[in-house]
């Protein structure tokens, strides 16, 4: 264990490379410690986190977990749907990691993280891992450490689900961090219309109209969504996003949802879209973080967004966190004239 750095966190039994090795070996017991580490804002821990994430990035072939975003308005049934997915996937021997992102109170910084309550099927099952996080700082309902946490879970679990709240803006944010984006709509016209108005119909890879058990309204919403989609221009990657009627409560349609997610995963692997998407996601994350910290002016110091994206592409072996750190130092140097 390196003596120059503080221990990663409680119960740390080795440096970050040991931790990375355990993750890459699929050791579930290493996950809590790794998630604590990447959420830690202290300088030594951040350095260790960068080491850890660099190691994962170098071994990116082993990050087998398929990353799925589950997004939609509060109360649409995302958490209940996750429970249904767990019940569906576990008997088939597939393991599941979940990040549940809760909106946190702006005023106090406090939050009640209540999603565990709906996702009960994973209790007492080592093949399921749920971590709740409060959305902090950044816009779009996505916690700072989300992307890193997704990488970590992806090393150990077959599927990584990320639950986020939102209609609008935040879809685009989360869509950069996952391989498949599932949008969960509430039955009732308002929701899907609002969604179409937001003009981001092309982002989700799968549409779910949940609460199919309540009947006609759900069916109407589904057909509205389908016709809305029919009007939009075909996607460049050739994927046609299905609209599925699902009841998270009684399990109807969950098989079809799993099939659709798997089909999109397959499509992504075969067409190379998943690889490309992950690359683009990295570039986006680096740009977004730097823009947030140093503004457009700062980005110009490193040649602007396009140049940055090229740099990220070239640094294939480096994690987002390291890139942000390194390029950030560079910008700081430029800004202070050093």
């Amino acid at each position, binding site marked *: 264990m390196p003596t120059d750095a503080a221990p990663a*966190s*409680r*119960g740390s039994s080795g440096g970050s490379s040991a931790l990375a090795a355990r993750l890459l070996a699929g050791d579930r017991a290493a*996950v*809590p410690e790794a*998630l*604590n580490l990447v*959420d*830690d*804002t*202290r300088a030594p*821990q951040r350095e260790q986190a960068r080491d850890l994430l660099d190691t994962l990035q170098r071994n990116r072939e082993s990050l087998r977990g398929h990353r799925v975003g589950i997004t939609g308005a509060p*109360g649409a049934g995302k958490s209940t749907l996750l429970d249904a997915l767990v019940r569906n996937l576990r008997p088939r021997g597939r393991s599941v990691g979940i990040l549940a992102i*809760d*909106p*946190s*109170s*702006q*005023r*106090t*910084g*406090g*939050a*009640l*993280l*209540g999603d*565990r*309550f709906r996702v*009960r099927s994973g*209790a*007492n099952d080592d093949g399921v*891992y*749920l*971590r*709740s996080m*409060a959305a*902090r700082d950044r816009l779009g309902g996505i916690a700072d450490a989300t992307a890193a946490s997704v990488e970590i879970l992806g090393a150990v679990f077959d599927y990584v689900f990320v639950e986020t709240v939102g209609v609008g803006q935040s879809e685009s944010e989360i869509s950069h961090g996952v391989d498949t984006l599932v949008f969960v709509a509430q039955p009732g016209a308002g929701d899907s219309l609002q969604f179409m108005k937001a003009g981001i119909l092309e982002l989700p890879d799968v549409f779910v109209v949940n609460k199919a058990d309540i009947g006609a309204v759900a069916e109407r919403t589904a057909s509205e969504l389908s016709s809305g989609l029919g009007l939009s221009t075909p996607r460049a990657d050739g994927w046609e996003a299905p609209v599925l009627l699902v009841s998270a409560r009684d399990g109807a349609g969950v098989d079809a949802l799993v099939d659709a997610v798997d089909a999109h995963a397959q499509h992504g692997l075969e067409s190379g879209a998943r690889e490309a998407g992950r690359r683009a996601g990295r570039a986006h994350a680096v740009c977004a973080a730097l823009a947030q910290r140093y503004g457009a002016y700062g980005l110009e110091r490193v040649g602007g967004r396009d140049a940055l994206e090229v740099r990220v592409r070239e640094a294939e072996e480096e994690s987002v966190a390291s890139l942000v750190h390194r390029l950030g130092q560079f910008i700081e140097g430029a800004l202070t004239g050093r």
Partner: protein
Amino acid sequence: MTAPKRDRPWLIRTYSGHSSARASNELYRANLAKGQTGLSVAFDLPTQTGYDADHPLARGEVGKVGVPIAHIDDMSQLFDQIPLAKMNSNLTINATAAWLLALYAATAERQGADPAALQGTTQNDIVKEYLSRGTYVFPPEASLRLITDMVTYTVDAIPKWNPVNICSYHLQEAGATPVQEIAYAMANAVGVLDAVRARDDVPEDALPRIFGRISFFLNAGIRFVEEVCKCRAMTALWDDLGRDRYGIEDPQMRRFRYGVQVNSLGLTEAQPENNVIRIVLESLGVTLSKNARTRSLQLPAWNEALGLPRPWDQQWSLRIQQILAYETDLLEHEDIFEGSKVIEARTRSLQEEALAEMQKVLDMGGVVAAIDNAYMKQRLVESHTARLRAIESGDLKVVGVNAFTETEPSPLTAAGSDSILVVDEGAEREQIERLDAFRSKRNDADVKGAITNLRDVLKNGGNVMPPSIRAAHAGVTTGEWADTLRDLFGEYRAPTGVTASGRAATSATTQAVRARVDAVSEKLGRRLKLLVGKPGLDGHSNGAEQIAVAARDVGMEVVYDGIRLTPEEIAASARDEGVHVIGLSLLSGSHGVLVLDVLKRLADLGLGDIPVVVGGIIPEADASELREAGVQRVYTPKDFDLTRIMGEIVDLVSDAD
């Protein structure tokens, strides 16, 4: 001098039961000999949640807060030498109500009693279980079906039985305002009656009789003038509802019939002798007004906030009722509030506000919808938060707690733990032995047949009662009956009512704690994260909810998943969520077994250094044992200052780091 004409007093009861059917039977007979006129049975938590004494979840809970009843021999023992044809029994039983009624009916048959003579009540109100009481098992739809099964069955087969007692009592115990108490109870009754009416096996002409058998269970708080108005408002609302919504023409059938247990939430650990005065005043609220007088009354005891009452403590409360009924002139007068403008005005305003709130619930789809979307539960948690903040700030005075705290040493509590009933640790083992003996002597083929029959009847939409009574005679146990239903209906968890974000308290002290949470979070590198856990079958959620709210509002991240988790689940959540501190809340007396189990499991996971604090009804002797075992702090009801508790938790985490 001729004695003035007096009304008949209400049924005088004491809510009791503990250890075993035999011990409880002795207690009941002693109470009846003291002039009690009805029985009120408290069941233990395994019986209420459908587990036999040897089930892992029953560990530490058997015979603790009530009597364990696993089969017909237990039930027969419980009513030994008590002729059921003459008794009026109140059974506080809900998720497993159909089963306990089946055992009761089968026992009556054994005694040779005519079912038509049986009088009493099964509480059987699951809506308030989700909202407050916590001994639910099945999902709302299945629960409602069981309730309506019992309603349609008893109306002909056991016509003097109250199959369901709509409870507003427990809502007040969870913090409800009078308006919420009335509104949600009425919405609940509508939910049950609409479901009954929707069944095709209910003839049109049965509805008035069914309506007439629906009774209520109310609370009576310390603001007893308002409570008089509340009872009058409910009497009027019920009458309106019967006439307008259900077309009940006979005014007799629209009479609002209710029983009461007076408020316990306001009974204090500090200066506990004051509770007797509170209990007396609360009793007035539901007895003073003849036109809205309770039909039965049960009173808590002076040591309510310390632990379970001993026979003497209950006797003291029994005597309160008897003095009120037999010594005072209360029962000699017509309604003493008739014509009072003040009472009328408050009654009317309560009625109007409650009607509006009830309509809100009906508009969102009725009680079942308003449970699952947490609307009602969230309102209760908010009301309770407001109440506790008012106590903390001193706006709401509680004598001996936040005002007039100087006191002489109390002779009542001088004896320490001897001032409460402590259930013998051997009760669990003995109940398991009896269960084994019972199982080995029954006819296995009969049992199997009865269970198969139960399953088939339920699957085909038949009424739960007949096959349950058959199963009772065949020797089926509580756990076996409930497992059959769990298998068919599945299980449910009700929302916690604690919202993701809230309104921060703005007092200087809370702001100071919030600043320290920020500082410590910075030092930790992550925001301070607290796990609030409720291990075991204990359904008392108020404390856990309010701790979660307080922690959230001083800026912590809080993981709280609701009641009835196993120690294993709690330890695993602590690990997976990466929490900095764990708070366990236990009020039902099984802290000894369960807290130690959580500590052990944390140690096994290598999390032994996460500080653990415990709160609830923990007698001092037990508290020191818990501290020796590694618990950092133990809180009890006298620690009403939530902000101070939060400050101490921050300190603990800061020191542990």
